[in-house]
């Protein structure tokens, strides 16, 4: 079982537009229902654009603060996904682990946690690779410089 795709799959832009429209319509009328806001936020965090994901996170945080909300675990789960997609792994892990405190054996959340950790490691590896590449490049330049000076 893999959660990888949940962190990399994206929603269709036309879907996002539909839910954006719902949200804006309700906004114009003065009050956005939790359902509309949640749906819009779910699509936002699956957008390919970081700015959309960020906006989705803001909307989810707002939902979470609303009194008498029944969907808190859903909001937190999507907050974990949104943050992971923005590479805010530490924050994402905090949300996932918060969920696990309430539901320690929730397989879906355990998988998400595992995947965030994997992504973290992968990013660290990438950092090392970039550093390695930079050193190689630098070495070559120095070598070239030395060779030229000798000539």
């Amino acid at each position, binding site marked *: 079982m893999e*959660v990888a795709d949940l962190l990399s799959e994206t929603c269709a832009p036309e879907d996002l537009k539909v839910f954006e429209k719902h949200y804006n319509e309700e906004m114009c009328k003065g009050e956005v229902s939790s359902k509309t806001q949640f749906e819009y936020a*779910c699509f936002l965090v699956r957008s390919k654009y970081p700015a959309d994901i960020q906006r989705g996170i803001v909307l989810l945080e707002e939902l979470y603060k609303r009194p008498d909300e029944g969907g808190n675990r859903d909001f937190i789960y999507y907050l974990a996904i949104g943050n992971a997609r923005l590479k805010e792994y530490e924050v994402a892990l905090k949300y996932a682990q918060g969920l696990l405190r309430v539901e320690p054996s929730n397989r879906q959340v355990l998988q998400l946690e595992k995947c965030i950790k994997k992504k973290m490691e992968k990013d660290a*590896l990438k950092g090392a690779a970039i550093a390695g590449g930079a050193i190689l490049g630098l070495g070559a330049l120095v070598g070239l410089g030395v060779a030229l000076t000798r000539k």
Partner: protein
Amino acid sequence: MVFSLAQVPIEPGRARSVPVNSGQSRGREGGTSTTLAWPSLHSLHIAILRGQSSCHELELFSIDSRLPRLAYQIKMSAGPYNYSYIFKYIIIGDMGVGKSCLLHQFTEKKFMADCPHTIGVEFGTRIIEVAGQKIKLQIWDTAGQERFRAVTRSYYRGAAGALMVYDITRRSTYNHLSSWLTDARNLTNPNTVIFLIGNKADLDAQRDVTYEEAKQFAEENGLMFVEASAKTGENVEEAFLETAKKIYQNIQDGSLDLNAAESGVQHKPTQPGRTNLSNDSQSSRDNCSC
């Protein structure tokens, strides 16, 4: 060599171009690598960097061309494929009918006694064999709660198979099938194989829906049907495999067009150059997966 290395876009967020390495990817599919001529140390770095940078490029690319999100999982850079096709499945049905348990039984061969409600969608994969061909099933298990209906609908697109589940001990879950079927028909393509599963067959004493009426419903609507039990594992394997066989059959007799963007099937390109751009981009994107 060193400068080539530096030219590889190393900051994924800034890699906004259409992938320039699709040709090289194709080479790798064919079992050869264009980086072969390079010293091994450098090739290694290139492979890592390229894998990660192409993620983002391809993400943008696949969105723009409205490709279906159905085949992100091919481990292309990890050597030769060990499967020939990817089939995308969705599992749909009312809350609490056992969709996640069926998936878990199928992928892990275990029964989860205490399964919380799925949030949004869950994802699972397993490689199976049909007619000597290895096929990777990529399964999207959707939340049954009404509050997620809008979110889960967006996963129907491009599914090759849909498992529609009800609970034989709860009549209401059976009565709602027509609504699930309408969604499945409207949001998938005409060739999508829809398989009806009456779950919790182990609870025969509490049965609320007879086998016969469900069978008739399935026949009237052209669905495949079994009663299964995620608890005992009875017929679980069969449901997933029969769906795959039917999809495979549709491919063989030509009724399922693999080039159609929403077919829900991805074929492993066997020869360099045979694949089209969309296959390429989807495949390469799999470098993202962990």
